[in-house]
């Protein structure tokens, strides 16, 4: 996989909402490649919670029947971008669980391109974003199903929570399907914390800031359910949330 040396512009779909000024000093981003042989399993947990801007490009190739579990906590104190390209072999399985947290005027984003090149592969993406202040959280996710990749099962569950009216979430799940027998689902929602739930919790005695914290913890936790190192990820996510609140 090669990457152009010139910095992308907003005309490049995958960089449409990117913070190009923050990206410039990081460009070009070296592509990290991961190959999982047929029948093998792999996993990776990325915890981005430092103070510097960060951009990662990951290309994953899964052999027939291979599986890979990727978890991402995208919560640096500056620009954070994780782009993932996946190519699935026959019967392979890819899981992405990602949580993004952003405050101030920072931008965080997850960009995925999942190619179901062969039959019977499964891909599941769960992305949960929380944006406060005037921050921006993006998800640009493409699922492509090649001709002949029948029996594909692709799922994108994307939700974003805005803590302030000045925050922004962009979600663009995209499907490109060239096979007939395919199951692809995507759900996408951008919203605020549910007022009914907040009143219910207040009525039991929880002060608003505590109720909000409990709900956000639960919301973010959905990205890491079932991860091999779930406990560590949940703890890191909690700490990142605390910094945001």
């Amino acid at each position: 996989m090669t990457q152009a040396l010139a910095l992308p512009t907003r005309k490049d779909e995958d960089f449409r909402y990117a913070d190009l000024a923050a990206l410039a000093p990081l460009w070009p981003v070296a592509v990290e490649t991961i190959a999982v042989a047929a029948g093998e399993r792999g996993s990776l947990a990325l915890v981005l919670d430092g103070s510097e801007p960060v951009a990662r490009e990951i290309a994953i190739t899964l052999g027939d029947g291979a599986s890979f579990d990727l978890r991402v906590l995208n919560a640096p104190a500056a620009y954070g971008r994780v782009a993932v390209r996946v190519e699935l072999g026959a019967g392979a399985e890819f899981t992405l669980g990602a949580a993004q947290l952003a405050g101030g005027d920072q931008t965080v984003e997850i960009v995925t391109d999942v190619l179901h090149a062969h039959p019977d592969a499964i891909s599941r993406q769960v992305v949960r974003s929380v944006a406060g202040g005037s921050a921006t959280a993006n998800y640009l996710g493409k699922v492509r199903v090649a001709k002949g990749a029948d029996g594909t099962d692709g799922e994108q569950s994307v939700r974003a929570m805005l803590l302030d009216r000045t925050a922004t979430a962009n979600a663009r799940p995209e499907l490109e399907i060239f096979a007939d027998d395919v199951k692809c689902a995507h759900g996408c929602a951008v919203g605020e914390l549910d007022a009914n739930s907040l009143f219910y919790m207040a009525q039991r005695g929880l002060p608003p800031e505590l109720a909000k914290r409990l709900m956000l913890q639960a919301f973010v936790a959905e990205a890491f359910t079932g991860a091999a190192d779930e406990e560590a990820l949940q703890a890191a996510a909690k700490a990142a949330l605390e910094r945001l609140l």
Partner: protein
Amino acid sequence: MLTITDLHATVADKPILKGLSLTINAGEVHAIMGPNGAGKSTLGYTLGGRPGYEVTGGSVEFLGQDLLELEPHERAAAGLFLGFQYPVEIPGVSFVQFLRESLNAQRKSRGEEPLSGGDFLKLARQQAALLKLDMDMLKRPVNVGFSGGEKKRAEMVQMGILDPKLAILDETDSGLDIDALRIVGDGINAVMRKPDKAVLLITHYQRLLDYVKPDFVHVLAGGRIVRTGGPELALELEERGYEAVAA
């Protein structure tokens, strides 16, 4: 304990409560009955402090405090419990965590020590047993996947754990089968039938009142209380209907 005087309230600028007055003393059980749209649930939500329920006139005094000045969580800490007609599901937050945090927040605002994890679980187990609710259900996310009847029983377990002074129970009897109705009725009596506590039951039907005997029955119509009587008023309502009795 609770003195409501000439309460007016609007929802989305529409007047719903139009001069409601009601006094509830410690040790009493009151029932408010009335037709759909009379303002029964609005009364509960207004007393609970739900956003969107705007008080436009009148006053409410609760245990010597101006209730309307308090935030919803402060009303809870002051001892007011609102049992919801439709309890809310909160994915990802377990009952145990939710109730322990709630109880300890209440205790903190009253200047009391927090309850330890062990003591809390003991209390939760006791109250769950009283309502015949499996303790394992309290380890699940709040109300998620609960049947209508289980949600109502869980409301009563919460009431038992939080131990309020005044419980306003909004159609706690709806969605309950006969056995569950008796269990819930017994639960209300066990937790709230005490000299220093009071209950306001909001209901459509007489049947809950067979288990929780009210001292007073009020008929709410058109945003005000139009008639007050003893338990016999509920029977009369059941027999003759709201229209005849409220007229």
